[in-house]
């Protein structure tokens, strides 16, 4: 059988027909054109549907608002007003109005005629005048032309008169007519006022329905650098579909129409100029969800960040800052990274100047026994289930070697106790317990009976060692030495001195040593002084990077043992090794799956790898590939936070014009923040809206440590604060908790000072407060008000003794050497605003003081007087206090 093509080849070329091909191909071409048109206009334009949907949704909301408004309108008043309009309109057909109107129309006609005739008369008069003058000039007889001129002038006067009369008459009619029309207008205005809101919403709904369908885009020229250091622009069209991002009414609307959930962030990063992708990522110019969000575009490197992960973007500009007011998850993530000491092994941008998080191990045998050290090295969480020290999963033999090295290094230490052995003896455990609970140990340390601080903090790890079993870890001699002066054992310790007397310290030692580990200890039976074992320990410690967190003899200058993380967010799943884990295919909620056969499944993606690694650092270890990262016990929430932080680890930074300048003020604030973070100020104090964890212990906030408000820097004198940090004094006698002595160095105090000043928008100025004189004129009224308002009921202003003293407010004799005078005024005006929950009541309301007989009751004047008087108290020199 011969086919069509065989037959065709037998036909001579000249006579072959191509018409079938033409028809077929042109048919295809036609279909292709139709398809591409269809695709262009309909299927690739989902945003048009979104916009229509949005307009309909919003218009419907306006409609329902209009209905609501209608419902809230007083219907009786509306029907009354409607009737008024109707009757006013009906009056327009009353006889008076109709006839007046008719007569007015007639008169208007007459007026028109009169005006015309008047104008004609004037023109004729002009012509006659010309003829008259011409006759005179030519010496002709001008009598007849004069007569004509006079006749025309008379006409002008006549018509003018008639116009005036007509106009007057019409004005009279107008008055009558107006009476009717204004009545109608008034009634209509009243009705409209009643239905005003309704009409407004209706108009808005109508406008929304008519709103044009168009692409909304934000173009940012000079936004960032390409990898080749060329300036690159960014185009965002996200708002084409997300039209409702700032529409209050769309708060609960479904996506893509809903309002942005964090308007406070938009106030800083205006989407109209800043766009959306700098924070949310995704493919800005794309207009279909799959491509715009980047998850259907496999080759798009920066898909949309969902959920809390969007906070990773903060790091692009704010990598220097550890606290951002409106980015709580970001702050929390950085806190977990810093507190877990990730930077000990990994280089991380913005974390280079942080101190090692673990204690130095130079003299560890002065504190604990080799048996304890061995057990700790093998599995820290066995002794302390919430410790930050991760588990290196050392074998017994490895743990013995590490212990051998640490013990031998410690044996050469020159550390000696400050007091003879046994000095700790003679304490009372019950008295010690009372002190332990009162002075503030529990602000940082958890014990078996008190876990509040851990619970409130909500992290899986403790910030200071749990003391529930500490009696089996440390020896009493060391503990006594430590409590008296923590910096004697560890020159950089964060543990403050509580200024305990010898006997107080003995009592606390007696109590703390009662907290024992009742379990049988695992022993080891090898010789620790075997040089081979010590050498093996040395090697292990270097390999596993113990020196990243601890100061260890001979290893002070070890580098970071693991990879740098500063660009880790850019790594691809293809570059990661998933070991023997099985992939979870469903990209969704399931992050980690422990299978019945002992294997583990994770998503084989970047996110899945990180989750698995943080869940179990040895997860991807195989027979061939050993891994050294120790195992942390992060909670699911913490894993996700740290992962979000790692997403942020890219080198993509917008050009400086798009960033907030990291100026001196921010640098000052950040410097202080890091000091405050190191010493855990937030365990006790609320600082930048965070912290005060120990407050959960108190029935009432005013009985716990005071918050440090943003205005702190404006409150206390720099000299005073310096002295206070060096040696805290009692300000609030009613507090049982003590501000400990942290033994800050000068640099740290300076940073804290600048931190507080920076938050209060003040600069460090050296000011001689002693020379600020009280205003003499205000002293007497000040004293009078001080008495009337009975300030002395709570505030002493001199030496105090005896009962009740503990319940007193700060001694005002301190005021002039402690406070800034301007602050006193602000405090008197509204104490709750400066320190919510304070026991100091507010005296002044609406610009008035309670006593109207002094200074006309003017609040500002009275405050000035009180401030003056308070400032004069306790001053050794200067103006004497008004006579008593």
């Amino acid at each position, binding site marked *: 059988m011969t086919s069509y093509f065989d037959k065709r080849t037998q036909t001579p070329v000249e006579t072959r027909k191509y018409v079938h091909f033409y028809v077929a191909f042109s048919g295809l071409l036609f279909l292709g054109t139709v398809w591409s048109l269809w695709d262009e206009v309909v299927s690739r334009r989902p945003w048009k549907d979104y916009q229509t949907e949005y307009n309909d949704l919003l218009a419907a909301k306006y409609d329902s608002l209009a209905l609501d408004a209608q419902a809230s309108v007083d219907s009786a008043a509306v029907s009354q007003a409607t009737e008024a309009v109707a009757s006013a309109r009906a009056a327009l057909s009353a006889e008076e109005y109709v006839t007046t109107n008719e007569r007015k129309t007639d008169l208007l006609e007459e007026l028109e005629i009169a005006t015309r005739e008047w104008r004609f008369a004037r023109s004729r008069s002009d012509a006659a005048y010309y003829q008259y003058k011409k006759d005179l000039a030519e010496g002709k007889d001008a009598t007849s032309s004069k007569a004509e001129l006079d006749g025309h002038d008379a006409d002008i006067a006549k018509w003018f008169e008639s116009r005036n009369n007509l106009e007057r008459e019409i004005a009279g009619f107008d008055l009558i007519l107006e009476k009717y029309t204004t009545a109608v207008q008034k009634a209509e205005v009243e009705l409209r006022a009643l239905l005003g809101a309704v009409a407004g919403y209706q108009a808005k709904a109508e406008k929304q329905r008519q709103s044009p369908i168009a692409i909304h885009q934000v173009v940012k020229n000079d936004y960032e650098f390409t990898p080749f250091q060329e300036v690159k622009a960014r185009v965002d069209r996200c708002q084409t579909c997300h039209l409702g991002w700032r529409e209050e009414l769309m708060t609960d609307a479904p996506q893509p129409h809903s309002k942005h959930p964090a308007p406070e962030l938009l106030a800083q990063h205006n989407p109209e100029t800043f766009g959306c992708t700098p924070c949310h990522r995704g493919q800005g110019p794309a207009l279909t969800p799959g491509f715009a969000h980047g998850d259907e575009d496999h080759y798009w490197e920066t898909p949309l960040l969902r959920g809390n992960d969007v906070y990773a973007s903060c790091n692009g500009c704010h990598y220097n800052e550890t606290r951002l007011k409106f980015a709580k998850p970001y702050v929390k993530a950085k806190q977990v990274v810093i507190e877990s000491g990730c930077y000990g092994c990994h280089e991380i941008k913005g974390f280079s100047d942080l101190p090692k998080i673990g204690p130095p191990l130079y003299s560890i045998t002065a504190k604990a026994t080799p048996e304890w050290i061995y057990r700790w090295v093998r599995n820290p969480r066995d002794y302390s289930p919430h410790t930050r020290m991760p588990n290196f999963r050392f074998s017994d033999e490895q743990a013995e070697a590490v212990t051998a090295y640490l013990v031998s290094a410690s044996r050469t230490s020159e550390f000696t106790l400050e007091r003879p052995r046994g000095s700790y003896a003679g304490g009372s455990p019950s008295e010690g317990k009372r002190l332990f609970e009162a002075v503030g140990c529990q602000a940082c340390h958890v014990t078996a009976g008190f876990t509040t601080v851990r619970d409130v903090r909500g992290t899986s790890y403790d910030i200071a060692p749990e003391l529930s079993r500490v009696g089996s870890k440390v020896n009493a001699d060391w503990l006594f030495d430590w409590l008296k002066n923590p910096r004697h054992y560890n020159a950089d310790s964060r543990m403050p001195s509580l200024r305990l007397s010898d006997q107080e310290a003995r009592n606390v030692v007696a109590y703390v040593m009662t907290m024992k580990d009742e379990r049988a200890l695992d022993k080891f039976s090898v010789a620790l002084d075997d040089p081979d074992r010590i050498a093996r320990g040395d090697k292990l410690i270097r390999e596993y990077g113990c020196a990243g967190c601890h100061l260890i003899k001979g290893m002070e200058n070890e580098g970071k043992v693991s990879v740098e993380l500063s660009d880790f967010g850019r790594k691809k799943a293809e570059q990661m090794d998933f070991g023997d884990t099985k992939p979870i295919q469903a990209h969704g909620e399931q992050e980690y799956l422990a299978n019945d056969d002992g294997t583990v499944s994770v998503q084989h993606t970047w996110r899945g790898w990180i989750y698995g690694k943080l869940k179990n650092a040895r997860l991807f270890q195989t027979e061939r590939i050993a891994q050294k990262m120790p195992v942390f016990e992060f909670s699911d929430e913490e894993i996700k936070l740290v992962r979000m932080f790692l997403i942020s680890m890219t080198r993509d930074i917008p050009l400086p014009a798009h960033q907030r300048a990291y100026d001196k003020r921010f640098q000052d604030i950040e410097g202080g923040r890091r000091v405050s973070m190191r010493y855990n100020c937030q365990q006790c104090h609320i600082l930048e809206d965070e912290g005060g964890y120990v407050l959960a212990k108190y029935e*009432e906030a005013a009985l716990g440590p005071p918050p440090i408000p943003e205005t702190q820097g404006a409150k206390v004198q720099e000299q005073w604060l310096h002295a206070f940090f060096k040696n805290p004094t009692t300000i609030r006698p009613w507090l049982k908790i003590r501000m400990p002595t942290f033994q800050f160095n000068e640099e740290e105090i300076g940073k804290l000072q600048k931190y507080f000043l920076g938050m209060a928008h003040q600069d460090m100025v050296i000011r001689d407060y002693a020379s600020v004189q009280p205003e003499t004129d205000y002293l007497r009224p000040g004293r009078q008000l001080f008495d*009337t*308002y*009975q300030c002395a*009921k*709570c505030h002493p202003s001199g030496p105090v003794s005896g009962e*009740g003293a503990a*319940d007193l407010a700060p001694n005002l004799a301190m005021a002039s050497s402690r406070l800034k005078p301007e602050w006193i005024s602000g405090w008197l005006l509204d*104490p*709750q605003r400066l320190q*919510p*929950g*304070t*026991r*100091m*009541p*507010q*005296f002044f*309301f609406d610009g008035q003081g*309670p*006593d109207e007989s002094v200074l006309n009751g003017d609040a500002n004047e009275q405050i000035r007087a009180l401030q003056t008087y308070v400032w004069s108290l306790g001053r050794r020199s200067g103006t004497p206090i008004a006579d008593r």
Partner: protein
Amino acid sequence: MQCRRVLGILILGMTIASAGDVTGKVAFAGTPPKGSPLQMTADPVCKKAHTKPVTGEDVVVNKNGTLRNVIVYVKSGLKGSFTAPKDKLVFDQMGCLYTPHVLSLMVGQELEVRNSDATLHNVHSLSKANPQFNNAQPMKGMKMTKTFAKEETFKVKCEVHPWMGAYIGVFNHPYHAVTGDDGSFTIKGLPAGEYTIEAWHEKYGTKTATVKVDASGKATVDFSYKS
């Protein structure tokens, strides 16, 4: 259609007709704790105001074996929203004590806070849902008016006189009462229906009961606390 309308009017008429009162008593069993005498020596004005020793009001058991200062209120079962009563309540500081020691009012209802003592008092609300306030009244006869926007029961105290404390219950509805010196209470004008009624005492906490207010418009609920 016609039937339905008639039925509607009937039902409406019935609900209006069947608004009822819930009454009851709060009993107290066991030996009442001995109140500790208040030491008012710190402020002579306070001391002078009393000729007899004063005891704390945290637990007051009446002569008939009932408990005073218990707030009894509708906890759930109400429908719709309510407007605040126009009448002002008075919260006085007299003889360095709060009168009344416990009071209840509705969201938006006015409370006049007075100082009838010639000494400094401050009224510090330890509220959580409502914004805290801490206002001083240093002179006798001073007055101020407060309203509250959120439902909660909170403590009020004076920082000058540590023994001074009172409790204020704020409710979203007008159906609440405080037991007096006979331990009884009356919640008036409650529409027919089933309700959960709760009693609250500052020391002994809460008790709940359910009650059905029917067409007769009367219902009784009793509570009992133990020492």
